């Protein structure tokens, strides 16, 4: 079995970021376990071998429940490894390898760009049913975030979108800077998936559930589905995929934030 594992390793070198995600690998392990290693970080082992990231680094996370969830992802694979279902593993790999080589400031700048084209701020003018739906579903969330962070966002039906005041941008920028690098990676992921800044903030603050946030992000699609019916291989597929990615991102942010709080408390003594 060790020879087979080594053969697989050379056929799909771990250095190569793209190759290991394109082809399907056979499941080459029986047991998955976690252990605590250097610096109190948690590692995942497949049989006896420690899990590594695509970049070749040792896979190690600060949060024990995160390690357990990642181990569960690996454990749930059947005959072939389906990496596109292992969202938490992918997020951890991204945080460890940082393949785009960005620092916190760059991530925050990229993230805030989504505020200018936030989904919940873009309104249509017709059909009337959709206008009402957007008003009833999206206005409360915008009101909530304006109150919670003491900012102005508003909504617009023009093609240019709403104008976001600089004070709003600064407030959000400051808030994002308070997150650690790992949590920020997760938050950026959720923002790019939901195509909104307002919805992920409401999700992270536990004002919305994942299902509700995904529904609000896909409001127009849901409206069309109610009118014209649902196509399982497109609508349901997209919905479930978005839910799984959003849930993974949210869980990742919460667990990474918790871990750094615990670490700080331990350091303070």
């Amino acid at each position: 079995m060790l020879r087979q594992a080594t053969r697989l390793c050379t056929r799909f070198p771990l250095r190569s970021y793209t190759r290991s995600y394109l082809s399907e690998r056979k499941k080459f392990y029986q047991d998955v376990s976690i252990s605590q290693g250097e610096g109190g970080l948690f590692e995942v082992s497949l049989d006896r071998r420690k899990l590594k990231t695509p970049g070749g680094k040792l896979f190690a996370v600060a949060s024990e429940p995160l390690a357990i969830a990642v181990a569960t992802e690996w454990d749930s694979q059947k005959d072939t490894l389906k990496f596109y279902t292992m969202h938490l593993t992918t997020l951890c790999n991204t945080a460890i390898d940082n393949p785009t080589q960005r620092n916190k400031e760059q991530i925050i700048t990229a993230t805030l760009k989504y505020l200018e084209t936030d989904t919940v701020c873009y309104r249509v003018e017709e059909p009337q049913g959709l206008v009402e739906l957007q008003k009833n579903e999206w206005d409360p969330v915008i009101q909530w975030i304006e109150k919670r962070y003491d900012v102005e966002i508003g909504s617009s039906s023009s093609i240019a979108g709403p104008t976001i005041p600089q004070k709003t941008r600064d407030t959000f920028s400051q808030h994002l800077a308070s997150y650690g690098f790992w949590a920020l990676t997760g938050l950026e992921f959720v923002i790019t998936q939901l195509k909104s800044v307002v919805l992920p903030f409401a999700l992270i603050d536990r004002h919305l559930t994942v299902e509700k946030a995904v529904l609000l992000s896909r409001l127009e699609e849901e409206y069309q589905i109610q009118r014209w019916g649902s196509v399982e291989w497109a609508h349901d597929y997209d919905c479930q995929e978005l839910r799984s990615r959003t849930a993974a991102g949210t869980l990742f942010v919460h667990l990474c934030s918790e871990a750094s709080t615990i670490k700080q408390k331990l350091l303070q003594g």
Partner: protein
Amino acid sequence: MASVGSPLRVCRGILKELRAQCGHKYQQSMAYRYMMEQFRKNQVTSEKLCRAQQELLHQAATYLCLLRSTRMHLALHEEYHGKGESKPEDVAKLVGLRLPQQPGGKGWEN
């Protein structure tokens, strides 16, 4: 705080998903043990723990959503996108048509 449902429902949901994933040995899995430990620890409510309890409940509901949606996404993928390229006859059947039969064979085949 978002309306997440009762802790019992969320817990049951997660156990169901773990069982679907791991088979009959799900009670030995790390996720099961961690889950039960967390739910037991937070069963006793006192006022000051209430917020932490709500936070954990939201987290549990998020994990349930993750497990459930991943499983359904995979099932849909296997059913609709996992089969590779289909034959022309099957594609025509999708819209209710049949390919024409030419008893003598098509001109260019011989």
